[in-house]
Every structure is written in structure tokens, then in C-alpha cells.
């Protein structure tokens, strides 16, 4: 009895003064409690430390960038505009990629006083379709101008690189139509309307105009295919008469995956001029390919050109600037170099799924600061435009392949291959297009290292 008492007395720490104050003996909790508390506090403090570091990193880069936003911007200018393409990682929601955008990229762009346009894609094909249709619109416009050479005069500045245009040489002072605002009434004393110019249209080097950020390997793949499709593909949707793909559709629609009958979509189909049943079937298949079953607002059109056909296609006549390495195609309206010339930044989304990956996921969860540092510094690079290099064809196509694509769920990839998904296909490029492209950041070899 005495021995146990002595042992118990030894364990804690006490003092007559403490006792007088009513403070009980201070002693360590039991072994199990110690384990519990230490594990808990380690977990929480690791998380807190990581978050704190992320905040510091963000603070550092936003601080670096803030002075840029203090520059004066005349009212008739629009700031440089970055286009951001965001795609979700496979088998996941868009929110995952939006988080990266919102946490690490947007603040840096915001505080640097740049404008940004976000293209979100919750389904495969949206980014490709948007990029391609934008380029096709542009080509249609340019084609229209070629037919009516009078209208070229307004854009004579655009075409100075092209000497073969006879209209450019003749410098006529264009007769201004007389408007009543020139001499009449309240308009007479008013300042004339200001024409707003993009800052991007004023830079000499087209690579310094704008910029593109692709978040996710899928977005990157789709963006590049979209560029090729828009520039090399036909302007009108080609008729598809392949019997093989049709069989595929048939087999796919019977694989038990329910197609949600969408009355709105059906009506649209009926309304549209293309009422061929075959087309409808294809569209249905497109819809089915999407992971989400919500009512699709945008219809995904199949690519107008297959990547294997790139080398067989001639450069369209309206894009004569593509043939020379220095030629620049500019948007006829805004005079901004088209997306093709704007350098790209690819941000890989670290996404792991599966039970066996849980340890790696935990590790990554506590190491997020390194990812934050990488993304923030790359975005800072985009803002500063100090490191821009030409696109290197085979090396840059695999950007993000080892950061992200290797982690894509195997079953998803298998399914994608069966369904001919755009994401699982090998990314192909054409040297005539690629030679005009450029990337932000250092060489690909340096970037792929962990």
C-alpha cells in the first residue's frame, strides 16, 4: 500500500503552495491519452502550418504583383486579357479545378490588374468547341473581307505585313459620312465618342499580347485540338458517312447507360436544319458521353477534322499569314493577335483517386504548399511575361502528362478509349500551327521535374 502511494506521489508534481491554493497534483495523462493527443495535434498542426505557408506564398506573389495595378490606365484602353480554360479532373467535379483557380491563380491575376476571361467546361469537348468555333467565325469574317476588298481599307494596319495587297498601297483619305452630331444641337459641344482600344492590340510582339492558362491536362489537350480544328478544319460541318462510327454508337447506346430523354434538346434537333436521324443519334451519343446528366445547355459538336488528317490539309487561303513564320493573324475587329499566338501556361491538377492511393493522398494533402508555390510562381511568370519560349512540338505536347495523366483512374481511361474520348486520345499537332505557338516558363525538361 505504501509503495503504491509513493509511486503515485512520485508521478505527479505538487507543491505545498499549490495544495494550499487547491491546485491538484499536476501529472502526465495516461499513455493512451498521450498518444491520442499527440496524433491529433500533429494532424491539426500540420494542416495549420500548410495553410499558413500557402497564405504566405500567396501574400508574397500578390505583393510582388500589386505595384503593377497602380499604373494609370487611360479610359480609352482595355487591359491585357488572359483567357483561362478550366476543365475538371476525370471522375470529379469542376469544383476541384475551380478551387485551384480561385485559390492560387485568380488572386495573382486580380491584384496584377489584368483582365481575365474564364471558360469553364463541365463536359468534354466544350473547350475544343469554343476555341474552334471562335476561330471559324474569325475565318468567315476574313473570308468576307477578301470578297469585298473595300472593307480591307479600314484594317489596312492589320495587313501591313502582307505586301501583295494592292489596296493597301493607295492611301486615300476616306470620306467621312456626315453625321448630325458634327454640327447639330447638343452634340456639337460634346466631346466626340471615344474609341476603346485593347492594350493587347498595341504590342509589337504578338507573344506579349494576352495569354492562355489551361487548368487541367484535359483542358490543355482540348485547347490544342481546338486550335488545330479551327485553323485547319473546314468551315462547314462535314457530312459524316462512316458506317463504323455508326455501329459504335449503336453498341454504345445499348450498353445499359441510360440516355436521358431531353425534350428541349429534341425539339432543338427538330428545329435545326439537320434533321437526319443519324445526326441525332450522334448528338445523343455526345450527350451520353458527358459525365453529368443535367440538361445540356450547349450542344457539343463533333470535331470537324480528325487529328490524323492534319498533314493532308492545306492551309486555308484566308490564313495566308500562317505560311510565313513572322505573319500574324489579328482579329479584324479588335486587332488583337488571335489565341494561337498567345503563350500558354499549363497547370496540372493533382488528383488521385482510389483506395490504394490514400497514403499518397494524405502526403499530398500536407504538402500542398509546394503546389501553391509552383502554381503561384508560374502565374507570376504569366503576369511578368519574362520567360516566353517557342512551343517545342513533341516535348510540350506531353506537358502535364506525368504530373496528371498518369494518375487518371485506370477504369476511366479504359472507358474513354472505348468511347473514343477526346481526353484519352493521343494529342497530335501540326508543325505549321505549332511553330506559331509559344509557352510561358522555362524548358519542359526543367518543368517536369518534381
Amino acid at each position: 500500500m505504501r509503495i503504491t502511494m509513493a509511486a503515485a506521489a512520485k508521478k505527479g508534481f505538487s507543491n505545498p503552495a499549490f495544495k494550499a491554493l487547491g491546485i491538484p497534483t499536476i501529472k502526465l495523462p495516461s499513455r493512451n491519452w498521450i498518444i491520442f493527443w499527440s496524433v491529433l495535434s500533429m494532424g491539426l498542426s500540420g494542416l495549420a502550418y500548410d495553410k499558413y505557408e500557402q497564405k504566405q506564398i500567396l501574400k508574397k506573389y500578390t505583393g510582388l504583383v500589386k505595384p503593377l495595378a497602380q499604373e494609370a490606365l487611360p479610359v480609352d484602353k482595355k487591359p491585357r486579357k488572359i483567357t483561362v480554360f478550366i476543365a475538371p479532373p476525370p471522375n470529379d467535379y469542376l469544383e476541384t479545378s475551380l478551387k485551384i483557380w480561385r485559390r492560387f491563380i485568380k488572386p495573382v491575376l486580380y491584384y496584377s490588374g489584368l483582365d481575365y476571361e474564364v471558360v469553364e467546361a463541365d463536359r468534354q469537348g466544350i473547350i475544343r468547341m469554343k476555341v474552334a468555333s471562335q476561330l471559324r467565325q474569325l475565318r468567315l469574317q476574313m473570308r468576307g473581307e477578301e470578297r469585298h476588298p473595300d472593307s480591307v481599307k479600314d484594317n489596312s494596319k492589320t495587313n501591313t505585313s502582307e505586301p501583295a495587297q494592292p489596296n493597301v498601297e493607295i492611301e486615300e483619305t476616306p470620306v467621312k459620312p456626315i453625321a448630325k452630331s458634327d454640327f447639330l444641337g447638343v452634340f456639337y459641344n460634346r466631346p466626340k465618342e471615344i474609341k476603346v482600344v485593347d492594350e493587347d492590340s498595341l504590342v509589337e510582339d504578338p507573344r506579349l499580347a494576352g495569354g492562355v492558362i489551361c487548368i487541367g491536362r484535359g483542358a490543355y489537350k482540348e485547347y490544342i485540338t481546338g486550335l488545330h480544328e479551327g485553323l485547319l478544319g473546314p468551315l462547314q460541318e462535314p457530312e459524316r458517312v462512316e458506317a463504323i462510327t455508326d455501329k459504335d454508337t449503336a453498341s454504345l447506346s445499348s450498353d445499359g447507360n441510360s440516355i436521358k430523354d431531353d425534350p428541349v434538346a429534341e425539339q432543338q434537333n427538330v428545329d435545326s436544319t439537320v434533321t437526319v436521324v443519324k445526326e441525332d443519334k450522334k448528338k445523343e451519343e455526345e450527350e451520353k458521353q458527358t459525365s453529368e446528366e443535367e440538361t445540356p445547355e450547349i450542344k457539343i459538336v463533333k470535331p470537324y477534322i480528325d487529328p490524323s488528317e492534319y498533314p493532308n490539309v492545306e492551309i486555308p487561303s484566308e490564313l495566308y499569314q500562317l505560311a510565313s513564320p513572322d505573319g500574324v493573324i489579328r482579329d479584324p475587329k479588335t486587332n488583337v493577335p488571335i489565341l494561337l499566338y498567345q503563350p500558354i501556361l499549363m497547370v496540372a491538377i493533382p488528383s488521385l483517386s482510389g483506395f490504394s492511393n490514400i497514403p499518397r493522398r494524405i502526403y499530398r494533402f500536407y504538402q500542398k504548399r509546394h503546389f501553391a508555390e509552383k502554381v503561384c510562381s508560374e502565374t507570376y511568370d504569366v503576369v511578368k511575361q519574362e520567360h516566353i519560349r517557342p512551343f517545342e512540338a513533341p516535348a510540350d505536347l506531353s506537358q502535364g502528362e506525368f504530373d496528371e495523366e498518369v494518375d487518371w483512374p485506370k477504369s476511366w481511361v479504359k472507358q474513354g478509349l472505348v468511347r473514343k474520348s477526346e481526353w484519352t486520345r493521343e494529342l497530335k499537332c501540326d508543325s505549321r500551327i505549332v511553330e506559331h505557338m509559344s509557352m510561358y516558363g522555362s524548358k519542359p525538361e526543367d518543368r517536369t521535374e518534381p
Partner: protein
Amino acid sequence: MSLFGLGGGQPQLTSNQKIQAAETELDLVTDMFNKLVDNCYQKCINKTYNQGELNKDESNCLDRCVAKYFETNVKVGENMQKMGQTFNAGGKF
């Protein structure tokens, strides 16, 4: 509205009523514009007035502010209209 669908259609507006309608609409638009200018000014312009000109930060902020304000205004207007319609329909027999 008539009971048996006779004499339907809108009643003819006199020019006086038309002018009144135009005035109220102008009032609405002016009011909205003033509110927009005020809100975006409060939100975006730095009150220390270091510079005479707008800087990038402010002009971007103004740009987004105006765009958002218009969009919200349109959406709220649409919804109100819808609500008004359903209310009318509900009150009618």
C-alpha cells in the same frame, strides 16, 4: 378584361398617358444609372485620390462592377416580372 373575351386587347392610350409612361420609364432608368454610378464609385475608387487618372486596379474594378450591376438588374427585373405575372394569374378566376 372582359368576361367573355369580348372587347379584349389593350385599351387605347391617350398621348398624355404615353408621355406619362415614358416619363416613368426615364425616371427608372435615370435612377438605376445614378445608383450604379454611386455604388461602383463607392466600391472601386480609392478615396485617397493619389492620382488624377484611374489606375488599372480601379478601372478593372469599375468594369466588373458595372457588368455585374447590369446583369443583376436584368435578372432581378425578369424575376419580378415573372412573379407579377403569376400573382396576377393567381388572383384571377
